[in-house]
């Protein structure tokens, strides 16, 4: 009897463990195996090619561009969404009128699938149809905003659309966290003479640390897996200027019949992620200032 209560939590978490490992790690291993085969159209485990796929991968311009884009995109997208989301959450927390409406307004972009918001943004950012034309029509002739068609700048358009979609969600996460904080702590800080910005920076943000942690993880995984967004907005174009590893991998594996190469790129993606995320996970899970 007494051991059952101790066992129960472990039993409850067991399915997650089993499925998590079978599916996530099982598939990862599977992917790793594929990457050293010469699989083309469908998986083919007979043809061992060693690291040839990796060599080919690193030899490709497109892959380098994809990695570089991923770096730019994740940094700006995660940073931008977090910053905007935090600002909005804090401002919404100031007992503003119409909070409900504003919250919904900030959140709704999440609701729309990118297949279509991509179209809308494509339109707005398109120089001859959208913003630029609008400004010209309104008489601001020198206005120029043609990032979408510029190879070097198109990725920033993807960032803008990405932030537009995700900032609201970051806001929701932060707001949920803010609403969970004991009021009297904030009161104490007010008494201590902290200004509102300082209260948020010094007291609330540290308390929200686990929430910030969740948000960073969620956003960065979105950025790494940003597939729909890129597909809908630019489909990797112009050329492959906005290609990211996710679209790269998809294209190689499914369109070009180079499953081995695709698998190699997926492995590289995971390795890159691991190099950045694992230390972060480690430090976050180790420091436990919130244990009560």
């Amino acid at each position, binding site marked *: 009897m007494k051991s059952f209560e101790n066992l129960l939590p472990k039993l409850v978490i067991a399915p997650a463990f089993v499925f998590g490992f079978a599916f996530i790690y099982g598939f990862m291993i599977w992917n790793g195996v594929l990457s050293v085969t010469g699989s083309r159209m469908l998986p083919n485990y007979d043809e061992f090619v060693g690291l040839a796929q990796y060599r080919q991968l690193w030899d490709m311009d497109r892959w380098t561009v994809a990695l570089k884009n991923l770096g730019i995109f994740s940094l700006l997208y995660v940073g931008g969404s977090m910053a905007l989301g935090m600002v909005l959450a804090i401002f919404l927390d100031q007992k503003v009128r119409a909070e409900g409406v504003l919250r919904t307004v900030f959140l709704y972009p999440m609701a729309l699938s990118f297949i279509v918001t991509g179209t809308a943004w494509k339109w707005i950012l398109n120089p001859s149809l959208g913003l630029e034309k609008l400004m010209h029509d309104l008489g601001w002739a020198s206005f120029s905003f043609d990032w979408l068609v510029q190879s070097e700048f198109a990725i920033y358009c993807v960032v803008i659309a990405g932030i537009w979609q995700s900032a609201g969600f970051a806001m929701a996460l932060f707001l949920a966290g803010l609403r969970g904080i004991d009021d009297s702590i904030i009161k104490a800080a007010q008494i201590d003479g902290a200004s509102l910005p300082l209260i948020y920076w010094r007291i609330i943000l540290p308390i929200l640390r686990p929430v910030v942690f969740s948000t960073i993880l969620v956003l960065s995984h979105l950025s790494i897996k940003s597939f729909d967004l890129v597909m809908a907005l630019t489909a990797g174009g112009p050329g492959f200027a906005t290609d990211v590893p996710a679209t790269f991998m998809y*294209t190689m594996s499914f*369109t*070009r019949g180079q499953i081995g190469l695709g698998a190699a790129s997926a492995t590289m993606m995971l390795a890159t992620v691991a190099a950045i995320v694992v230390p972060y996970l480690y430090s976050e899970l180790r420091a436990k200032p919130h244990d009560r």
Partner: protein
Amino acid sequence: GKKEEAAPVAATPAPAAAPAPAKTAVEVLHYWTSGGEAKSAAELKGMLEAKGYEWKDFAVAGGGGENAMTVLKSRAVSGNPPTAAQVKGPAIQEWAKEGMLANIDNVAGPEKWDELLPKVVADVMKADGHYVAAPVNVHRVNWMWANPEVLKKAGVAGMPKTWDEFFVAADKIKKSGNIALAHGGQNWQDFTVFESVVLGVGGAEFYDKALVKLDPAALTSPTMTKAVTTFRKLKGYVDDASSGRDWNMTTAMVIQGKAGFQFMGDWAKGEFTAAGQKPGEGFLCAAAPGTANAYTFNVDSFIMFKLKDEAAQKGQADLASAILSPEFQEVFNQNKGSIPVRLGHDMSKFDDCAKLSAADFVATAKAGGLVPSIAHGMAVSPAAEGAIKDAVSQFWNDDKISVADGVKNIAKAAATK
């Protein structure tokens, strides 16, 4: 009340002939979703339903079938492939190599497909000497479309025959305030134009060496440099907003008189006709400059998967036979803008462009100008095709890449296995 709506049931007009024991479902995966194409697919559906089958439509739009291929692989791997799927070119052989395709010689033999089909087409449909796929149509890719009004306004008389003539005409159009070349900035569109430029500049033989056999010498030859230079020059005639534009939106620019020319396969004709225009009146069609004696073909086809169920196998046979039937070929190709694969098909009901295409098809087949379209997956393996497409598109979009580097990149990409 909502419950019934929930499970989508194929809207089946009561089939006349079929006695109705549980109907065999024929699930067809395809990416014919645009207006003209969908109409064509509906034709096939009607024919099969008339034979007593239940047509399960599995249409997946987007990106020239990219999504459809993903689905197909996923379905194949799960051991639950559809009855038939729209696959073309060398990919047919790749699927056959995986051992997944059914032999449909039992239809092809009695129906004498070997005689009915041009050899180039038949070869693509076969693996190890057996038919595994049924061809639907033949598209010509090296077309040039034009709006006569725009040309007239700019003072251009007739369709340019060479690239030099083209640039003269394009300059005039530009001066008259219209866009000279309607182009959609998607990589396959870039590639389609490129293919026509190479064919026009180098001729069919060069095309075959460079873009079909992927001969490194040809790929780095001065002819290639010339083609790439011409290609780069074209960009100056394209508007700013082309990036990411769909091909039919691009065609619409010609239809609406915003732009003069477009290089696109004959499926573009469907858009013109759908807009109520007639060839020679509302729009003009001609082979791309310098390619009058050549023909880049693009054949759509359906592969048949190995299935255990006998009724389903019968369904496959009936599907294959229906696809090749003259009635279907006639209606389908009129909708789609392509020409029938059946040799000697009566073209009288077709429009002028199609007639020209059919004539050129037969002529070039004899003269050796008939080449597979690389941009549409008919010439080389998807891997090499994709790599070259990347190189071409990158060159098109990035003016900082010199012609010499462009040539080098393309040659390097062609080495992809």
